[in-house]
């Protein structure tokens, strides 16, 4: 109980009452008397009260809904509590193994954000294995994309901070295997300073690490519906592990279309091809 007491005392100013917790009414509720957990409360009541306080803290850092940016994937937007990604933070995509489609979704999200912000997409690629024709296939315009090839992890971290700190950046995308809490916090502060968005692809073991991300997704590939399906469409399950203002894991299914497949023009309305650039590309193909 001692630790709970410390936590509540530090969050006094930010505690909000039970009931409506929407962002628009926060200012009104902030004036109302806060509800603090008492020593005699049952465990579930304590947890609920603490949860509301943490929710208030996290919501306080968000931007007005008008500043939100679509993730470029309608299904992913629908999973987020405010249906938007907000500048001034980063998003993590956890992938169990390579080739699951999570990288494609994250790249698509990064490009969509860069287009919305009218800036360049910056890809940090120390191994020089990102394949530009594959990016074109995902609908990313290469002249609006800058590739950084740092020689060491130290240089890569430095470059990420510099790019996030620059408000002219459209979006940043990087694969990061190891990320300690201090570096993650630096990324967060840099993104806040520049009001930019970073998209990081992380390996699955990172699920146990403390995250500073505004949203954290887990990708689970789904096997094909039937082996006779000849289109190159892929189904992946996206689970929102963490998002500000959201406590339960929510999941949805995303269909990654094959833009070169003529069938995708018919069945692609709920998938990646819903984005204007990719849809245009598939029509040309």
């Amino acid at each position, binding site marked *: 109980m001692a630790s709970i007491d410390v936590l509540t005392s530090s969050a006094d100013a930010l505690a909000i009452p039970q009931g409506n917790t929407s962002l628009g009414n926060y200012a009104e509720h902030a004036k109302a008397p806060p509800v603090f957990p008492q020593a005699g409360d049952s465990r579930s009541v304590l947890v609920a009260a603490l949860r509301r306080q943490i929710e208030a803290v996290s919501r306080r850092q968000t931007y007005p809904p008008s500043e939100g940016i679509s993730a470029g994937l309608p299904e992913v937007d629908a999973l987020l509590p405010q249906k938007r990604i907000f500048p001034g933070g980063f998003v993590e995509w956890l992938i169990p193994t390579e080739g699951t489609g999570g*990288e494609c979704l994250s790249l698509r999200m990064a490009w969509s954000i860069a287009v919305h912000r009218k800036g360049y997409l910056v890809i940090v690629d120390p191994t020089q294995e990102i394949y*530009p024709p594959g990016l074109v296939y995902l609908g990313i315009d290469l002249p609006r994309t*800058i590739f950084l090839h740092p020689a060491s992890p130290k240089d890569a971290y430095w470059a990420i901070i510099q790019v996030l700190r620059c408000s002219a950046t459209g979006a940043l995308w990087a694969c990061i295997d190891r990320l300690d809490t201090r570096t993650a916090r630096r990324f967060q502060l840099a993104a806040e300073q520049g009001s930019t968005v970073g998209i990081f692809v992380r390996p699955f073991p990172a699920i146990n690490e403390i995250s500073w991300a505004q949203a954290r997704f887990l990708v689970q590939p789904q096997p094909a519906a039937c082996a006779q399906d000849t289109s190159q469409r892929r189904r992946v399950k996206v689970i929102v592990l963490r998002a500000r203002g959201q406590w339960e894991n929510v999941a949805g299914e995303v269909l990654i279309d094959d833009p070169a497949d003529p069938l995708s023009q018919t069945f692609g309305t709920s998938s990646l091809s819903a984005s204007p650039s990719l849809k245009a590309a598939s029509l040309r193909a």
Partner: protein
Amino acid sequence: MSLLAEFCTRYTPHIYFDSHSPSDTLFLDLTHVPHLINDEKSFVIHLIAECYRQGFHPVVIAITETASAGWAFTHFTSLPANHRISQGRIVPPGKMRDWLRSLPVEAIRGKEEWHATCHELGCHTIGDVLRLPLSEWEERFGKDFGLRIQQLLGEREEILPPYRPLPKFEYSVCLEYPTTSADIIDEHISALLHILRNDLLKKGQGALELVITFFCDDAKPLSTTITLIHPTVNAEKLYGLFQLHKEQLRLPGPVTQISVAVTCTASLEWGQSTLFHRPAASSSREWAELLERLAARLGKERVSEAILEPDHAPEYVTRWKSCFDRRRKQKSTFLSFAILPGARPWRLLNKPVPIEVVMGIPSGHPYRFFYRGAYKEIVRFWGPERIETGWWRGDTILRDYYRVETVTGEHYWIYRCLYTGQWYLHGIF
């Protein structure tokens, strides 16, 4: 050769490479230079000794009136290279033509067939060649031969490729004592940059490329290049970029001289200040500054754009171009999507990984493969997409590519080399 050329910049800024390949020669314009070290003989001795100290040994030096004659004397009047002795030769003014006469015809820089034909005609030395009128030689070999002879004798001008363009602004400081102190070096560079700033401002120019060179005691000189997107005279900004460069530099020895040279300039962009803030202009400036910072720390070749080449071999499709390359930018790649023959992965392994694949019989299609310690069952595949290309590069590619989906929903790009039958994993979707 570049290191030797960089070392020689302490004697003269006019340094040229040999236009013939393979190049083993540097040409230095020594007009008004040797007298600074007493005379030409002292200069040659000094230069040989300094080259030896810097690790350039052996060297052959010839001081002559023309570049072609210098090449002839260094290549045909010295001891063979296996003697490992540095040598110097000074041709007195007015004696060059006489001395050249005794050299073999190979001392005329040009085509080998010229030399062979001269020998067939009984002309074995330059003196033999000069006995006949030049017009007769030109009728046989063309105008080039006459030009070479005239250049050799100093009757025609010879144009050589410079080691680097003459710096438009160059400042250097010789230190009283060799030092490795970062503070002292920083102080001198800051002072040089402020002098540079004043001179650039007077001319209305801004620096686009800056070369900072450290001449070290008993070691080769060390240079670093700062490249900018927009011309600038801001000494503080240049100093800040130098600080980022400095983290990557390792001085080979105590510094004796520091040089700051501007090798590329452009007119300063003057703009009328506006009453209201223009976000687009400030965003563009901020973006340019970001790229300059990234290039300063990572190296400008590591801040790049991707250019798609019309090549079928997956390894050769992409060409990386530095963002600081001022050549024409490529057009949008949305249209190039249409010419891609099939799906391409977002990640292409630098080196294809050999894998074991179980194939169906008689189709030969992949059924399962072994990768990272486990068998991966293939439930769907697309292909084969045959790629056969690259015979002109000497390594003909003949591959059947498949995009495969495993039972767990992962997509890979694998291929079979049709020469060896070996399967490889090449990309990840």
